[in-house]
C-alpha cells in the first residue's frame, strides 16, 4: 500500500565541515570587528589618561580653578579654556536653538509649499557638510570684518557691562560663538525636523478639530509631543559644539588671559590642544592631555545625558 519514498529525497544531509567552518568563522569575524569599537574607545581613554597622570598628580584640582598657563615656569591652569569651552558652546546654543527649532517648524508644519520646504531642508543639510576649516577661513576673512562694526557698537553702548568691556580687535569669543551657531544649526534643525515629523498626525487633527489655530496647535500640542527628542538633539549638539576645533581655533584668538568680555580673545580646550599640542613637550604635553580629559568628561556626560533624555522623557501618547 504505502510505497517507500525515494531514498535520497528525505536523506538528512549534513553540511560539510568546511561549510560550517566558514559559517562559524564569519560569525566570529564579525564579533571581532564589532569589538574594535570597544577596543578603540578603551584605547582612547587609556592613552589620554595615561598621558595626563603626571599633570593630574602635580596640579590636582587647582588645574581647573586657576587660569595661568605658563610653559616657561611649568605652571598650568585651564580655567580660561574650560570657561571658554562652556561659554562659547552654551551661548551658541542659546542663539541656535530658537533658530533651528523655528526652521524645523517652518519646514514641517505645512506653512509653505512642499517644494520650498524641501529646498530649505536640503540647504540646511548641505550646510552641515561644509568642512569646519572652510567655515573658519570664511570667518577670518569675511564674517569677522563684517561684524566688527556691530561689536564696536556693542562696546560703545554697553561697555559698562563686564561682557562687553573690551574693544573688539579682530578674533575673539563673539565671532567664535557665531561660527559655532552656524555649525550646530544644521544638527538642531534636522533632529527637530525628524522629531516633529514623528508626531502622530492624530494629534494635529485633534488640535485642529477642537478649533485651535495653527500656532496654538504647534506650540501647545505638537512641540510638547516632540520636546524630548528635540532636547536630546540639543544636548547632542552641545557636545558637538564643545568639541568643535578648527573653525573656533581660527577665530577665537587663542589667548589664555581670562576675561569676562565676549569681545576679547579667548580660548577653548579644543583650540588650545590644536594650537599647542604639536609643539609641546614635557609637562606641557601632560597638562594638555589633562585638559583633553576634562573635554572628554564634558562631552561624554553631555552625550550620555542626551541619550538618557531621549529614552526617559519621551511623552507617551
Amino acid at each position, binding site marked *: 500500500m504505502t510505497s517507500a519514498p525515494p531514498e535520497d529525497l528525505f536523506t538528512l544531509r549534513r553540511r560539510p565541515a568546511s561549510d560550517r567552518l566558514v559559517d562559524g568563522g564569519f560569525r566570529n569575524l564579525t564579533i571581532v570587528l564589532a569589538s574594535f569599537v570597544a577596543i578603540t574607545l578603551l584605547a582612547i581613554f587609556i*592613552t589620554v589618561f595615561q598621558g595626563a597622570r603626571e599633570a593630574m598628580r602635580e596640579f590636582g584640582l587647582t588645574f581647573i580653578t586657576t587660569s595661568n598657563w605658563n610653559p616657561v615656569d611649568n605652571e598650568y591652569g585651564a580655567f580660561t579654556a574650560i570657561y571658554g569651552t562652556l561659554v562659547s558652546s552654551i551661548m551658541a546654543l542659546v542663539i541656535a536653538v530658537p533658530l533651528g527649532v523655528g526652521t524645523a517648524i517652518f519646514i514641517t508644519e505645512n506653512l509653505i509649499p512642499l517644494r520650498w520646504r524641501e529646498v530649505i531642508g536640503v540647504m540646511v543639510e548641505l550646510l552641515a557638510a561644509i568642512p569646519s576649516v572652510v567655515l573658519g577661513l570664511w570667518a577670518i576673512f569675511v564674517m569677522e570684518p563684517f561684524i566688527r562694526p556691530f561689536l564696536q557698537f556693542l562696546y560703545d553702548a554697553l561697555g559698562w557691562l563686564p561682557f562687553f568691556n573690551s574693544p573688539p580687535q579682530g578674533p575673539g569669543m563673539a565671532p567664535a560663538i557665531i561660527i559655532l551657531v552656524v555649525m550646530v544649526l544644521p544638527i538642531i534643525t534636522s533632529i527637530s525636523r525628524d522629531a516633529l515629523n514623528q508626531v502622530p498626525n492624530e494629534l494635529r487633527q485633534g488640535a485642529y478639530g477642537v478649533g485651535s489655530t495653527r500656532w496654538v496647535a504647534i506650540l501647545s500640542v505638537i512641540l510638547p509631543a516632540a520636546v524630548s527628542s528635540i532636547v536630546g538633539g540639543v544636548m547632542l549638539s552641545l557636545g558637538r559644539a564643545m568639541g568643535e576645533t578648527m573653525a573656533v581655533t581660527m577665530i577665537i584668538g587663542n589667548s589664555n588671559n581670562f576675561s569676562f568680555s565676549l569681545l576679547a580673545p579667548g580660548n577653548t580646550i579644543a583650540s588650545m590642544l590644536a594650537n599647542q599640542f604639536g609643539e609641546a613637550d614635557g609637562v606641557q604635553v601632560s597638562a594638555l592631555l589633562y585638559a583633553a580629559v576634562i573635554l572628554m568628561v564634558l562631552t561624554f556626560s553631555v552625550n550620555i545625558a542626551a541619550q538618557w533624555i531621549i529614552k526617559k522623557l519621551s511623552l507617551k501618547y
Partner: protein
Amino acid sequence: MTTTFPASSKSLHFNPSLKRNRLDQFLTGLAGVFSTIAVLPLILVLLYVLIQGGRLISIGLFTQLPPAPGLDGGGIGNALIGTVVVTLIASMIAIPVGVGGGVYLAEYSSGGWFAQFIRVGNDILAGVPSIIAGIFVYGAIVATRVFFGQSYTAAAGGLALAVLMLPTVIKTTDEGLKLVPRELTWGAIGVGASKFVTVTRITLPSAFTPIATGVVLAIARAAGETAPLIFTALFSPFWPEGLFNPIATMSVLIFNFAIMPFEPQNELAWAASFVLVVMILAANLFARWLRRFASK
C-alpha cells in the same frame, strides 16, 4: 433647547484682524525669518568660496607644489593627492571593520549585553571630539614611532580619520540591514542557505544602497576633517613620499595658509577650499541621489 449665536461675532468666515490670527501670522513670519537666517550662512559661504576660490582655478593649481611662504604662484597638487590618499587609507580601514561590526549588530547579536555595550560604545565614539581622535593616534602611534621608526605619517592620519568614520559606518550598516524585509532572510534560510551565504548573498546586497549612502557621507565628512590630521599626518611642502612619511592634505593646507600673513598663501587657501567644497558637496549630492534612486 437651541442656542443661538449672535451672527456678527461668530461668523464662519476667516477674519484676519482677530488677535489670534494676527499672532499666527506674526509667528509664521518669525519662523520664516529664522529659516532665512539658517540658510544664509550656506549661501554666503558658498558665494565667497566660489568667487574667491573659483577665480584662481587653473591647470597649475592642480599640478604644482605650494610656494614657499611669501612667494607667489604655485598650486595645491600635493595636498589634493594627500587628501585622496589619507581618505582612502581611512576608508580601507573603517569600511570593512564598520560593515563587519554592523553585520554583527544587525544579524548575529540577540540583544545581549555585548551588543548593547557595542551600541552604546558606538554612540559614545561618535561623540568623541575629532581633536581627541588626533591626540589618541598621536599618543598611540606617532609618539611611539611604531611605523618603521617614523613619527608623523600618512598612515597615522588615515588611522585617525578611520576612528572618526567607524561609528557612522557601523550605524548605517546596522540600520540599513534592519530595513531588509525578514522574509528575504527566511526565504534564504528556508531553501537551505547557511547563515554566511544568507548574509553575504541576500541581506548585505539588499541593503547596499542605504549602506553606500552612509559610507559616501562618512567619506565626505572625513575628507574635510582637519583636527585629527594636524599632528598625525602633519603637512609637507613636497610631493607625497609614501605612506610612512608626513603628507600634505587640503584641509591642513587651508588651516596653515589661512593663518599666514601672506596674500598668495591666503589665496591658495581659498582655492583649496573651492576644490574641497566642490568635492564634498558633489559627494553629498551623489549620496542624496543614491537614496532617492533606492526609494523608487
